[in-house]
């Protein structure tokens, strides 16, 4: 894990997470909020995938595999699970926003709010 080239993905992770958090805390539009959460999820997934990388590694599949180091398979399994969960979460959030829009006619997190205090 030496060499600066391998740190570039971590910078991308930091950028993605930073952008996502900024979107989540600043955007009042609920669709944009969901986009922020999806970007956050991508950042975390990229983080997990990058952890498993080994220098010059190949995909961890034995079928017709060439010789060489393989990258770690466990982070890829974790990422896949996380993606699957992310699909379910995003679908649920978007359908809730659709119904909220039907009720309130607005997808602004302040204007569509009914409860406070």
């Amino acid at each position, binding site marked *: 894990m030496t060499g600066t080239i391998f740190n570039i993905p971590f910078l991308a992770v930091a950028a993605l997470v930073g952008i996502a958090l900024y979107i989540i805390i600043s955007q009042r539009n609920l669709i944009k909020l969901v986009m922020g959460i999806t970007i956050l999820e991508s950042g975390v997934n990229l983080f997990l995938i990058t952890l498993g990388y080994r220098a010059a590694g190949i995909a961890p599949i034995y079928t017709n595999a060439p010789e060489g180091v393989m990258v770690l398979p466990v982070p890829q399994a974790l990422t896949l699970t996380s993606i699957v969960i992310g699909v379910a979460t995003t679908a649920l959030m978007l359908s809730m926003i659709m119904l909220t829009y039907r009720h309130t006619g607005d997808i602004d997190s302040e204007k569509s709010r009914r409860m*406070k205090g």
Partner: protein
Amino acid sequence: MASLAFWNPIACIIAFVVLVAIIYLFRSRGQKKYKKGTAQTQIFLSGEKPPDAEQRHIRAHNIYWGFFQALKQYYDPTIKAHTGIINDYIIWFITLVAVTAVILFIVWLT
């Protein structure tokens, strides 16, 4: 456990039952002129006609009015902080994560 050594709910219940028995004893020695369904059970308000049930019931937001008035300086900012906007919830979360990480870092330095 030390705290449970002197705490016995059975004793408490026995004391309660004894207390109820004593109260009942006092109550049974009272006058027995009370009759149901007569004017004795009607509401008496200096001869005025009592207001409707709707008006008589003390509503929830009137209870403890003075308490909230006295603690106005506490309540106003607290209720204002409960904005109900989802973005603000996440701001609180991120702030607390940052504060906790900084505290742990400072403790580690010293």
